[in-house]
């Protein structure tokens, strides 16, 4: 069985994220790029599955973007993934999730993966759609916000899904499956020294979008602009005696914000 883990390279949010003068992208002079943190849980889950389940032969890491995202693949190979797939797509930030999913599906469909794992969302756009879009495009069953997965037999997996307000649910799925993994379900491992040295021996298959012969991948949404949210309202100060302040606060919380 083969697992493919989708991993995205995203701007490091610890840097100050600012909009550039074109209003369509962020300033990158001060921003390093890192592997999307939620995806690291997906990779760890895949590596744990391979360690536990004999029938899983290969963990493949797939990343799409500009050439710098090959580093994301190398980091994953250093941690124990077997092979990488890099889809060279420098136009990615202008494409909506559906367009991106179609490109990735075209590459992945050749290989008939049994399991697709991805993080629950990316820390940059946060659409939270890719894993499920791929499930539909690749005709797989799926579950989102997965907190744990167990094989019941060769073709059935039981997953624990997180629901709102502290509820959970088990769900049984027939392979092939696409799972989006909730952050925190495992502790992503470090890459060992031997792991890093071993990256040289592993392969990264490279695909160009133009070679894929896709027809309908133009984005169906268009970015009008990026902007820094500015507060338009000025602060309304509440004054008076303590009792008066409290009364006004209760009024606001009850009638305006409606939380009591």
């Amino acid at each position, binding site marked *: 069985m083969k697992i493919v883990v989708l991993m995205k390279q995203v701007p490091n949010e610890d840097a100050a994220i600012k909009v550039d003068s074109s209003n369509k992208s962020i300033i990158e002079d*001060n921003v390093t790029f*890192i592997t999307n943190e939620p995806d690291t849980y997906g990779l760890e889950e895949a590596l744990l599955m391979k360690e536990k389940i004999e029938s899983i032969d290969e963990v493949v890491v797939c990343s799409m973007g500009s050439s710098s995202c090959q580093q994301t693949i190398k980091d994953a190979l250093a941690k124990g993934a077997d092979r990488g797939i890099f889809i060279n797509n420098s136009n990615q930030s202008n494409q909506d999730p559906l367009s991106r999913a179609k490109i990735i599906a075209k590459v992945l469909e050749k290989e008939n993966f049994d399991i697709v794992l991805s993080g629950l969302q990316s820390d940059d756009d946060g659409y939270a759609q890719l894993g499920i879009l791929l499930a539909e495009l690749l005709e797989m069953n799926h579950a989102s916000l997965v907190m744990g997965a167990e094989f019941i037999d060769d073709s059935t997996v039981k997953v624990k899904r997180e629901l709102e307000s502290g509820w959970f649910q088990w769900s049984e799925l027939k392979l092939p499956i696409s799972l989006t993994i909730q952050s925190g379900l495992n502790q992503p491992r470090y890459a060992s020294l031997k792991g890093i*040295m071993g990256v040289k021996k592993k392969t990264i298959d490279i695909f160009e979008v133009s070679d894929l012969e896709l027809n309908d991948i133009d984005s169906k949404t268009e970015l009008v602009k990026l902007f820094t949210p500015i507060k338009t309202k000025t602060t309304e100060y509440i004054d008076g005696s303590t009792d008066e302040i409290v009364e006004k606060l209760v009024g606001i919380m009850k009638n305006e914000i409606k939380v009591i």
Partner: protein
Amino acid sequence: MTQNQREELPIDVLFVGGGAASLAGALHLNRQAKENNLDLEIAIIEKANEIGSHSLSGAVVDPRSLIELFPDLDINSFPFEAPVKTERMYFLHKSGFKLGFPYIPKGMSHHGCYVASLGKLTRWLGEKCEEEGVDIFCPFSGDEVLYDENDCVVGIRTRDRGIDKNGDQKPNYEQGVDIKAKVTVFGEGTRGSLSKQLISKFDLMKDKNPQVWAVGVKELWKVPEGTIDPGYVAHTLGHPLGNKIFGGGFIYGMQNNILDIGLVTGLDYNNPTIDPHHELQLLKTHSWVKNLLKDGELLSYGAKSLPEGGYFSMPKLFTNGALLIGDSAGFLNGMRLKGIHLAMKSGMLAAETIIDAFKENDFKEKSLSNYEKKFKASWAHKELYKARNFHQGFKKGALFGMLNAGLALYTGGRGFGFIDRMEGHEGHLEMQKKTKQTINRYKDLKFDGKITFDKATDVYHSATKHDEDQVPHLKIIDPTICFDKCKEEYGNPCQYFCPASVYEVVEENDNERLQINFSNCVHCKTCDIMDPYQTINWVTPESGDGPAWKNM
């Protein structure tokens, strides 16, 4: 995993630290090894997540080392911002007055040099290393130097990963690995934590001047097109440091409408309330500087100490099984304000020494002492020797310092024209006790959030991050000193000299406590250097932690 099962990785040569010195050294060594038919396993370990993330400098780079290392490359293919086009030196006064020096002496001129980002440069060198087969292990922090039974350095032990704040193992705990090497080259940069141990253990500073440091605090700004040209270089004296504090400001033009502004403050000042971050903000209140920045946007902030002591403050550069390179060994020309080319050259000289060592199969002092011989025969020595008394001349103030520097230019580096070796002084011992007369330099400083920023906002722009769940990497050897002695004597200067608000005196339950916000640390080492009691010991944090600088 028990102690017995600790993983070992045997290689031939290990470079500790992935800065300019190690990268140049490893690359040169790799090539020389192939030329000499030696099959050497060479590796670099670096504590940052990627090469360049912890690199910070001005910088104006003398290209000669890069040209030596890459003789076949066109100078335009080096990752520089621009050749130095306009060179200015200004004396500033807080009133707004600005006086340009009409003439910059040749020894201090930057003509023929390039404005550069050290981060960009090291990333480029890192790529070259990987292309040519040198293993770079990121992120791996060095924790301990390893010795054999004869006290010969045999490698280093990496730091355990996955230890929580109580010192217990987390689920992803991984024991540190012993990387064993025939030669270990220490290129940790300024005030290297393992180099510090090595220097102390083997008394490598015997008969040397004590090292003295400065701290450079800088910001990168995005400015409107046309504000500054790439290749513009300006250095400033006067405001804000004045006559008594060593240092000065710099403004460099980089590509992409980036303005690089910084201030270097000598870490041998007297006033215990000096705050290098605040000094940089004061520099920006000068009307000329304010005007340059007024329509710009702050992108990045960072700080790093630099070894200013010069030639006589360099330690002995070798011991059995080990060599010291780059800033860890003080390869910095304070007069020319340049160290990157010297760092790279030191790495290359170390590489040549190591080739000879492998040919002779001798990794002890007898063979490694060739490093100092090669250094003495090189242009690096000639350059550092001429600047040997630069910093020491400033002990009596900037005016004397400049006079000394000027005279030195004509006398091959003699102090005030005639002193061959001037006395050095330990920086932290220059700090005077806090009294009622201690001047508060910042009473009129207000942070406007547009040009000047408070420390917390600046630290946010350093993109620094540390896993909260770990033992703080800033160790106070004797914590009782803080409120039993230091508060009274110096007023807890750590709150001021740290450019990242790591140290905070907090009032709690009618008591005072030192809060260590270690996750703000930008790895500049100022605290390790300047603490008057030398009770702060900086060690490497969890691998990968620290700033995430892109083009600093």
